[in-house]
């Protein structure tokens, strides 16, 4: 049947090529719909409890998406006339940032002074050019004594200061908004809004740098981080894809020693990518850094399909078979294995849909599509193309087969040693796997080639970071934030949190209360404490709210009916373990000491802290289903329950060992690892299918002994397995160069796993086969194996 198909295909080869090119161009045109995300929240599924809690918080208070501009004057102090003038000017100009709703700096900090029964509420720094040295000294002491400012907007040594710009971006586009015209939609598109705000800020900061050359500026914040996503994607696309294509070209030339085969492979790879990304565009998939790594992955996987087809074709031609016959024969031999391996690979990637993190659904689906396209292209387009191109196979020069022969001898001779040594190694590494520590430091998702990361590291180091943990403290009653019992609890908790390791700053309403109490009592320091009764607190708040400028009100700290307040803890950049400890510690403390206000942590930091564990749990199901489906396919392909079960070892163990190796090399894993097992499963299984089907054919069709069958398997597929493994490993090593941690970890770990899989298939598997497949199974050797039927030229 496949022979008939192959012959028909070659008859209409020009039509096949034309159809492929046209369809590819048509589908690829969907690429224009691809948009890059710039919202970190895409990493969280709509049901993610931490996301829901965070959105709830955003809904209750002012949103906390921010831009943070750090200013470090070369003079070494923020408190000189020139720098203070700059702060006032920059605070004012920062209001021009599109979508800004609030600007906080030490200059517009609302300072309250009391003289008898006169209360003055004013900017801390006003018209600095008119200030006398004593006034400047006074401003400095006020700022550096103000807990709301120190280590948030000004460093405790007075050397750096920051401007915090809060932005309110439009809500995500709804279904109805799709009916609008592009111009109308762009106006309310949060992605475009964010890019607009960021572009404006960059230009503005460039202006600051020109106006104030004596000040060093650094920009960070959630908005800056969000905008770093598309920029990381773009940087990757520019560096990784050309590198990957180079790997393909060099690899294929080196192994196949045939220029036209290289051309064919490059075209198949290119078309697979165009088709998959085009389809993604038509499907409306939004590109995230993980999803944007799909082209590199597809490229790598598509090469393997081509190599299998081309190796057999070239082998046949070298054995003096005419080209078209060699193509038909290669198709006949490879159609089913390529189909099966494509299906298993696609299953592995599709199982990513179980992930809790939507970008991995997209990656899985795009790659699965790409794998499907690569399959169709390598059995439809590639044979037709090869028939048209003037391919010539040179006389065989390599001695790889004899190398494989020698290797097979070695495996057979040392089978006992290999078996036990490898078993020990496999178990040893697998046991190492749990030693990996989960760590998702979202700032470090970007490597230090990304400007956002460099700026954030510097700002975190000198002033305050992006690691903010928030508590939504509920008094349980309307107006309850003024309840002294509640305020006392909040204050106790605030004092406790301040003592914890890594805490840079705690922002709490209690500080405002203490300060107001002092102001209302003639600035008497004895009143720098919480007001004692509820009406008093409520009335102070009323006074304060009436006296504040626009954008500096309390809506970011107190909810509408004044029943809840938000306490924000800024920390140094912390590992996931440390954040989990912080969360557990604070929860335990609250339950023991202030049970009335006990609340879990929330915010972006908390979301990323739990993301890996949630994903690992959600992917357990996906990986299990993938394993079951792939095993069923293996049972079907190998027509043997026994060998299906045997195949589980070389399919599962490499991933476990991969983690073991990782534990030794790196020791920390991120969100990316949750999908690696399912992903590599679909890939490493290919080696097992190829090896076992050849082994079984030798046993069943040729009645060979296990030893001879092992030798046969090495001779027929050994080289192809080594070549595809090298190509795959190289491809994933390219991905490992990504500037985005999730992609680079995924790439490196997959590369390691694939190499381990080959080692297992080349050592443990044959030794194990020779141990368990004693000649008692000789009766079944007569079974025909229709799937991998005809003998292959050795």
């Amino acid at each position, binding site marked *: 049947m496949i022979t008939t198909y192959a012959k028909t295909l070659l008859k209409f080869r020009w039509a096949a090529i034309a159809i492929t090119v046209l369809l590819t161009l048509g589908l690829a045109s969907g690429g224009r719909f691809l948009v890059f995300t710039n919202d970190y929240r895409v990493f969280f599924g709509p049901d993610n409890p931490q996301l829901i809690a965070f959105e709830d918080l955003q809904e209750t208070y002012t949103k906390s998406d921010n831009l943070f501009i750090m200013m470090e004057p070369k003079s070494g102090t923020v408190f000189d006339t020139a720098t203070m003038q700059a702060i006032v000017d920059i605070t004012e100009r920062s209001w021009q940032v599109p979508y800004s709703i609030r600007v906080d700096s030490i200059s517009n900090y609302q300072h309250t002074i009391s003289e008898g029964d006169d209360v003055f509420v004013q900017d801390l720094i006003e018209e600095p050019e008119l200030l006398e040295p004593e006034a400047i000294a006074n401003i400095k002491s006020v700022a550096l004594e103000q807990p709301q400012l120190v280590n948030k907007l000004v460093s405790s040594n007075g050397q750096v200061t920051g401007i915090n710009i809060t932005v309110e971006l439009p809500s995500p586009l709804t279904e109805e908004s799709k009916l609008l015209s592009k111009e109308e939609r762009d106006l309310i598109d949060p992605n475009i809004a964010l890019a607009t705000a960021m572009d404006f800020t960059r230009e503005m900061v460039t202006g600051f740098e020109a106006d104030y050359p004596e000040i060093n500026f650094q920009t960070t914040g959630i908005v800056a981080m969000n905008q770093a996503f598309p920029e990381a994607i773009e940087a990757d696309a520019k560096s990784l894809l050309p590198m990957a294509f180079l790997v393909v070209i060099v690899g294929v030339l080196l192994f196949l020693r045939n220029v036209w085969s290289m051309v064919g492979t490059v075209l198949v790879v290119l078309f697979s990518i165009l088709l998959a990304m085009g389809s993604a565009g038509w499907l409306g998939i939004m590109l995230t850094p993980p999803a944007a790594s799909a082209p590199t992955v597809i490229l790598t996987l598509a090469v393997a399909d081509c190599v299998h087809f081309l190796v057999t074709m070239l082998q046949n031609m070298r054995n003096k078979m005419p080209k078209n016959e060699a193509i038909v024969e290669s198709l006949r031999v490879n159609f089913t294995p390529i189909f099966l391996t494509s299906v298993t690979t696609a299953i592995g990637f599709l199982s990513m849909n179980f992930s809790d993190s939507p970008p991995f659904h997209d990656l899985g689906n795009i790659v699965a599509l790409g794998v499907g396209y690569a399959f169709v292209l390598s059995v439809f387009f590639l044979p037709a193309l090869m028939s048209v191109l003037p391919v010539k196979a040179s006389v065989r020069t390599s001695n790889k087969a004899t190398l494989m022969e020698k290797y097979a001898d070695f495996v057979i001779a040392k089978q006992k040693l290999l078996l036990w040594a490898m078993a020990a190694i496999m178990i040893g590494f697998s046991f190492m796997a749990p030693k990996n520590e989960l760590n998702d430091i979202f700032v470090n998702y970007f490597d230090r080639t990304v400007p956002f990361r460099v700026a954030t590291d510097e700002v975190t180091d000198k002033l305050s970071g992006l690691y903010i943990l928030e508590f939504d403290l509920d008094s349980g009653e309307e*107006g309850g934030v003024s309840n002294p019992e509640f305020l006392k609890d909040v204050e106790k908790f605030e004092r406790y949190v301040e003592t914890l390791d890594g805490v840079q700053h705690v922002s709490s309403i209690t500080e405002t209360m203490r300060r107001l109490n002092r102001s209302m009592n003639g600035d008497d320091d004895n009143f720098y404490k919480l007001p004692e009764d509820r*009406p008093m607190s409520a009335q102070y708040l009323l006074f304060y709210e009436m006296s504040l400028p626009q954008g500096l009100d309390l809506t970011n700290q107190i909810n*509408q009916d004044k029943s809840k307040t938000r306490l924000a803890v800024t920390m140094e950049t912390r590992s996931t373990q440390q954040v989990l400890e912080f969360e557990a510690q604070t929860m335990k403390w609250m339950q023991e000491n202030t049970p009335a206000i006990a609340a879990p942590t929330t915010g972006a930091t908390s979301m990323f802290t739990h993301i890996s564990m949630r994903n690992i749990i959600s992917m357990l199901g996906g990986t299990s289903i993938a394993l079951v489906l792939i095993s069923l396919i293996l049972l079907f392909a190998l027509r043997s329950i026994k060998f299906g079960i045997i195949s589980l070892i070389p399919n599962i163990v490499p991933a476990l060992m991969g983690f073991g190796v990782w534990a030794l090399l790196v020791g920390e894993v991120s969100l990316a690892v949750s999908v690696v097992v399912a992903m590599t499963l679909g890939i490493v299984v290919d080696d097992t299918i190829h090896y076992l089907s050849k082994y079984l054919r030798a046993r069943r069709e040729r009645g060979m002994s296990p030893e001879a069958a092992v030798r046969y398997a090495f001779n027929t597929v050994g080289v192809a397995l080594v070549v595809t493994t090298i190509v795959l490993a190289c491809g994933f090593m390219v991905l490992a160069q990504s500037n985005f941690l999730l992609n680079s970890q995924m790439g490196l770990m997959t590369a390691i796993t694939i190499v381990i899989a080959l080692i297992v298939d080349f050592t443990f598997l044959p030794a194990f086969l020779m141990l368990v497949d004693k000649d008692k199974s000789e009766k079944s050797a007569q079974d025909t194996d229709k799937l991998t039927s005809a003998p292959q030229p050795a």
Partner: protein
Amino acid sequence: MKAALLTSATVALTLSITTPSYAQTAEERGLEIFEQVSAQNDGFQDSTASMTMTLINRSGKKSVRRMRAKTLEVANDGDKSMTIFDEPADVKGTATLTYSHTKEADEQWLYLPALKRVKRISSKNKTGAFMGSEFAFEDIGSQEVEKYTYKYLSEEQLDGIAVHKIEAYPTYKYSGYTRLISYIDQERLVSLKTEFYDRKDVLLKTLTLSDYVHHDDKNWRPARMEMINAQTKKSTILEFSDYKFATGMTDKDFSSNSLKKLR
């Protein structure tokens, strides 16, 4: 257009403005209409009203505050006004007294019953949320013509009513707005809608005034004001009831000492 010119001419004559109407600039015309609006407001001597303020957040959750307002008309200067808070209970009895001035900064006192003291508040910038609402103190304080410069934009129809669309620019340095666009009912000379533009000249809030009631055949007063924040999607509804005019209040009722005696 003819009608409009005629109206302007008539108005110019009645107000004894010497500038001939045909030479009137958009700025002059805007100012003129606001003077008429102000004139329409004047002559009430004093007034009292009850206010209910409903705060509505993004998810539609409501919170209610109640207060009373008293105003005393002052000739040739800004009005004196007092706001007494009734609800929530925690702030009951808290009261503010404001002398708004046309030339210099407003004066303000606050009485806090919990402290039993009157505090004089000096704050240049009162553009923030008033009681957590979408109204700034600036928005509900006395609207003096002199606090803005104006520019007449166009005549328009607003929900079937002929309106003057006029832009106003705050003269006060610490205002939270770059400009306001007001829609003035041509017939009744009251504002129906005002759009507030923030410092980056982006629409911040829209105030809709409705349910106007005619008091003593002299003054129009809105019974309902709705402020919608275009950026945060939060809104506040301010409803007025029990308007009373010319109740005979005097300066004594608007002294800082009087704040303590309120109930």
